[in-house]
Structure formats: structure tokens, C-alpha cells
């Protein structure tokens, strides 16, 4: 006798209990603290803050711990938390030329005011597994200190702008639309596209950017400047009549300078792509700048060559990993009702096909 599958509720509770056990792993191994994750897995924390659209290293570290290191799951936890937070106002735009830079490099000028600051980068490390790290308890030797960089590091693109060599950026005084508070609609203006890119999946934005480099909407980028560091976040307080500092955030900013031979509407000049991401996330910031530039084809009067990175609907609808992973993984939920209707359809079509074949054979 068939008994309907019951007990979904108990199964869920038991699954959650098992998951909690698995998350903790072997009890004989010390538990990780939030501070350890925040300090020692800082780049994972940065990615979760960037794609979660919430700057809070401790919460991001907690999400990583709870998600067992699954970063997309951690991003999801942060997003679901973020959406419940009240909004009491908006900060002033951050001024990245006043950034306290840990790193600041230009690939277009050998030297420039403020200098090149290499900073804590993997770039010139040899990727050899460091077995000494496997032995715990060894603190690294302190890194040499230099004098602090000047308070204000000018943007490389400003030098080009002074000579009129780079396309000017229009001043946007209007309050940009908020991707998280309004439904996405098209055409999406640049502030909206940049919002989507900065919270977009790092892998997706990277691959889109890479596709432009390989010829699908090539836009000849140079990294005019890449900077990483802390900036102050300020907010106007109406009761006070002036802005006060709320805190600081670490940002990665990338400005690309793109070769451009001119179009029907624009003279030959350099053009710009822009990337700005929470935390130290330079792969993401550079990728974002390339994809931003690719999506600007229309305003610059370029041809749409049909490249995926030029198609804002394609990029914006598919860049969000919380949406993508949810919809992708939902196909593991029960679909037996739909499948049943398909089964019946296929059986019917096959029976008809077989019948007509027999009839043809008889004729």
C-alpha cells in the first residue's frame, strides 16, 4: 500500500541539526572566531561586503562562518539582513582623491605626483605554496615603514582632462535611482549600471570584462589608476547645518583610460571606464571598469557589435549571484506536477507517432 511521503517538517529540522554539526566540523579542532576570519580572511570578507552591498567586516565574517565558507551563501545572508535595515539618510559622495592609500598604481605613467605605491599585493609573489605557513604561531617579520603618502593624491585622469585629451564626465546632480528600492528597468542609466556591477558576482563581471579583451566588444583599456585605501564617510545633519564624519570604509577604485578613435558624434579622445568596490577587491574593480566602458557604446556613438558585455539587459539581469544561484538551484525543488504533465504529453505524442508509422508501413 502506498503511503504519501510525510514528515517534511521533521526532515527539515533534522537536516538543520546535521548542518549545524557539519558546520562546526571536528570538535577536537579549535573553533574559528569572527575576529580571525575578519583579520585573516580579509579578502573573502571584502568580497562578501562588496556583493552583499553592506560595509560591515564583522557581519561579513559572521556570514562566512555561518555559510561554512560558501561566499555566495554568505553574500545572501548579508543581503537578507541588509534589506531589513532602516534607512535614515544618505552620505555625501566619498572623495577618493583624499583616500589614505595603501596602494596606488598607474599603468599609464611611469611616475606621477604622489608616486606609485605598490602596497600589499600578490602581484609579484611567486605562487609557491609556503609550507612554513602550515606551522602555526609564526608571526611575520614587521614590514618596513615609509612616510605617509600626501593627504591628497590627484587622479591620473585629471591630468589628461586638463589637456582635454579625455572625454569629460557630465556632472550628475540628480539623486541616482536606487537599485535596491526600485525595480530595474531599461534603459538603465550609468549610476544604475555601476550599482549593479559593484554588487555583481566577481566571477561574472570578470568573465564579461575578459570577453571584451578577447574581442567581444574590445575597448582598448589601460589602467590609468588603481587605488586602494580608506576614505571618510560623511553625512549632512540638517539639525547641525554641517556634515559630520560617520566613519571610514576601505574602497578599491579603478579608472581606465580607453583608446578611442572617435565616432559620428564624438571627436578622437581617450574615454573612461570606472570601477569602485568595497574592500580590497582589485580584480573586481578592474573588471567593473571594463564592463562599464563596454556598456557606454551608445552615449559615445560607437557601434553595437552585438557583444554580450555591450548588452546592458544581458549584463544587468545576469550579474547578481544571489538571484542567479537561487533560480538555478530551485530546479532541485519538487517539480513532479509539471513533470507529470510532460510525461503524459510525451507518451501521447509517442503513441501518435508510432500509430502513424504503423499506418505508413501498412500502406
Amino acid at each position, binding site marked *: 500500500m502506498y503511503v*504519501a511521503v510525510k514528515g*517534511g517538517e521533521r526532515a527539515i529540522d533534522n537536516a538543520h541539526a546535521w548542518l549545524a554539526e557539519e558546520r562546526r566540523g571536528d570538535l577536537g579542532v579549535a573553533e574559528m572566531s569572527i575576529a580571525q576570519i575578519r583579520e585573516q580572511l580579509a579578502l573573502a570578507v571584502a568580497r562578501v561586503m562588496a556583493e552583499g552591498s553592506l560595509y560591515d567586516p564583522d557581519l561579513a565574517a559572521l556570514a562566512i562562518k555561518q555559510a561554512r565558507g560558501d561566499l555566495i551563501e554568505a553574500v545572501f545572508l548579508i543581503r537578507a539582513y541588509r534589506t531589513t535595515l532602516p534607512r535614515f539618510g544618505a552620505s555625501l559622495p566619498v572623495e577618493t582623491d583624499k583616500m589614505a592609500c595603501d596602494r596606488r598604481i598607474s599603468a599609464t605613467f611611469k611616475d606621477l605626483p604622489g608616486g606609485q605605491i605598490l602596497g600589499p599585493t600578490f602581484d609579484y609573489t611567486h605562487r609557491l605554496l609556503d609550507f612554513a605557513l602550515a606551522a602555526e604561531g609564526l608571526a611575520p617579520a614587521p614590514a618596513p615603514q615609509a612616510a605617509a603618502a600626501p593627504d591628497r593624491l590627484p587622479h591620473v585622469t585629471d591630468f589628461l582632462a586638463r589637456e582635454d585629451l579625455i572625454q569629460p564626465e557630465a556632472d550628475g546632480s540628480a539623486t541616482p535611482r536606487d537599485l535596491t528600492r526600485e525595480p530595474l528597468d531599461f534603459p538603465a542609466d550609468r549610476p544604475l549600471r555601476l550599482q549593479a556591477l559593484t554588487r555583481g558576482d566577481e566571477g561574472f563581471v570578470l568573465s564579461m570584462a575578459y570577453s571584451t579583451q578577447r574581442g567581444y566588444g574590445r575597448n582598448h583599456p589601460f589602467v590609468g589608476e588603481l587605488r586602494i585605501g580608506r576614505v571618510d564617510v560623511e553625512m549632512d545633519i540638517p539639525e547641525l547645518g554641517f556634515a559630520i564624519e560617520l566613519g571610514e570604509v576601505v574602497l578599491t577604485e579603478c579608472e581606465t583610460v580607453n583608446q578611442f578613435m572617435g565616432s559620428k558624434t564624438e571627436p578622437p579622445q581617450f574615454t573612461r571606464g570606472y570601477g569602485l568596490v568595497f574592500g580590497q577587491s582589485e580584480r573586481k574593480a578592474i573588471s567593473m571598469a571594463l564592463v562599464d566602458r563596454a556598456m557606454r557604446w551608445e552615449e559615445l556613438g560607437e557601434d553595437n557589435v552585438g557583444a554580450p558585455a555591450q548588452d546592458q539587459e544581458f549584463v544587468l539581469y545576469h550579474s547578481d549571484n*544571489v538571484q542567479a544561484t*537561487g533560480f538555478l538551484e530551485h530546479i532541485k525543488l*519538487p517539480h*513532479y506536477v*509539471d513533470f507529470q*504533465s510532460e510525461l503524459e504529453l510525451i507518451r501521447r*505524442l509517442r503513441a501518435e507517432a508510432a500509430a502513424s508509422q504503423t499506418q505508413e508501413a501498412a500502406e
Partner: protein
Amino acid sequence: MNAYNFAYLDEQTKRMIRRAILKGVAVPGYQVPFASREMPMPYGWGTGGVQVTAACLVPEDRLKVIDQGADDTTNAVSIRKFFQKTAQVAVTEKTGEATIIQTRHRIPEQAMTEDQILVYQVPIPEPLRFLEPSEVETRKMHALEDYGLMHVKLYEDIARHGEIATAYAYPVKVEGRYVMDPSPIPKFDNPKLESSALQLFGAGREQRIYAVPPYTRVVSLDFEDHPFDPSKAPHPCALCGAEDSYLDEVITDDAGSRMFVCSDTDYCASRREDAA
């Protein structure tokens, strides 16, 4: 759960969703964009339906949640628990006793009444999506009532297979105007879309809400010489003997023996109770 508002969403968000619902009711079958929120369950798990339910719930409501017609499927259990926890509303498995029913992939067999709301979880709200991938284009097609592409697709089905080869999410025309995706319900359920109850459709990831108000005309697309046929497996239910309900096929042994049972668990159980 005092940390969260009644039914999880804050009142401003609920108001925004209610506005979208009202617009949907005013323009039956039209997909209203709304600023869908990230919910504490993944996209694809019914976030659109959950937001619509949250915006409709009042403390006096009695909620029923079904997935594949059943109250005890894991995701139905999970969503029901979510609202028990965040809204402390009464819940039921009885179709007739519920004031709001959230569903995935089925319409209950028992006819619904004017006092009830049926909330559907919708994965892809756009009936034209697999004919035209661009949202900009499909919105234009709806605005111009340009549904030629859909009719050509249905015609090609008939030319190729002798019938319209769509078994679920079968497109309908609402009140003679908008072509609408009824969510992935089997086409067997399509006739039940003309109902005394208010029907609301929520697509969270795609940020769309749409509605079929009570007593709205809902016509499944077809041709005069190939009329719509809400087919089902040619069997009665092996448990309750119903011949008018949608059936799940259950494989019962390694040799592939199978039986057919009602997909609507409440319908099946109450028929068996009545017989006993």
C-alpha cells in the same frame, strides 16, 4: 521574533507591494514592476509569493501553503513555518477553511470563494520570454497587444506534433487583453483560473506582480479547429477514486509498477474521510 515587523516586511515595503497589487487588480493580467526585496529564503523558493502573502496577511487570517498540491512538501512546510513564526497567524490544511492560500504549481481542486485569496509563486512571469529574451521587447509587445509570435509558436506546435505541445504554464488571455503566464500549473488547472477568489501572482527575482480579480474572463489560447484540452492521466485516484482531480504518478517498486494518486492532498484526504 519581535525583532521583525508583523509578517517580516516593514510597513513601508508592504505598502509598496499593496500598491503594486492594486494596480495589478485594476489592470488584470498586466505585469506590474515592484521593488522586490531580498527575503530570508532564496530566489526560486517563492520569494515573490511570500512577499505578496506578507503584504496581504492580517492577524485574523488563516493560511494554507501548498507545493505541488500538497501541504507536507518540504518547501510548503518551510513557508508555512515562516509565517507562523513571523506573523503568528493560524494555519490550516483545509482548502475551505483558509483565507489565504499560497501555492506553487497547482490550483486546489475544491472551488474557491469570494472570501479567499490565492497567491501563486511565479518563476518567469513573462509568457513571451522563451520567444523573445529581451524584457524591453516583450514589454513593447504587450503594450501593442502584439501576440503574433505566440500564435505562430502554437501553430508550429500543431504543424509539428498535431497538438499544442505545452503541458504546463499554458498561456492564457485575461479579460480579452493581456496574454499571461499562469505560473507553472498543469494546463489541467487552467479552467480553474476563472474563479470567485482573488488570484495574485508574485515573481520575486523578476520583480513583477500581476493579478486576476474574481470573475475575470481567462481564456487558454487555442484555435477554433484545435480547441484547448485540459488533459490528465486517464485513471482514477488509487486512494480516493476521484476521476476529476489531477494525479501524480508514483513508482511503487523496482519493476516500475506505478499508481496514480491525487496531487491535491487535502482533496484526497477529505474524500476518503467522507467515504469512511
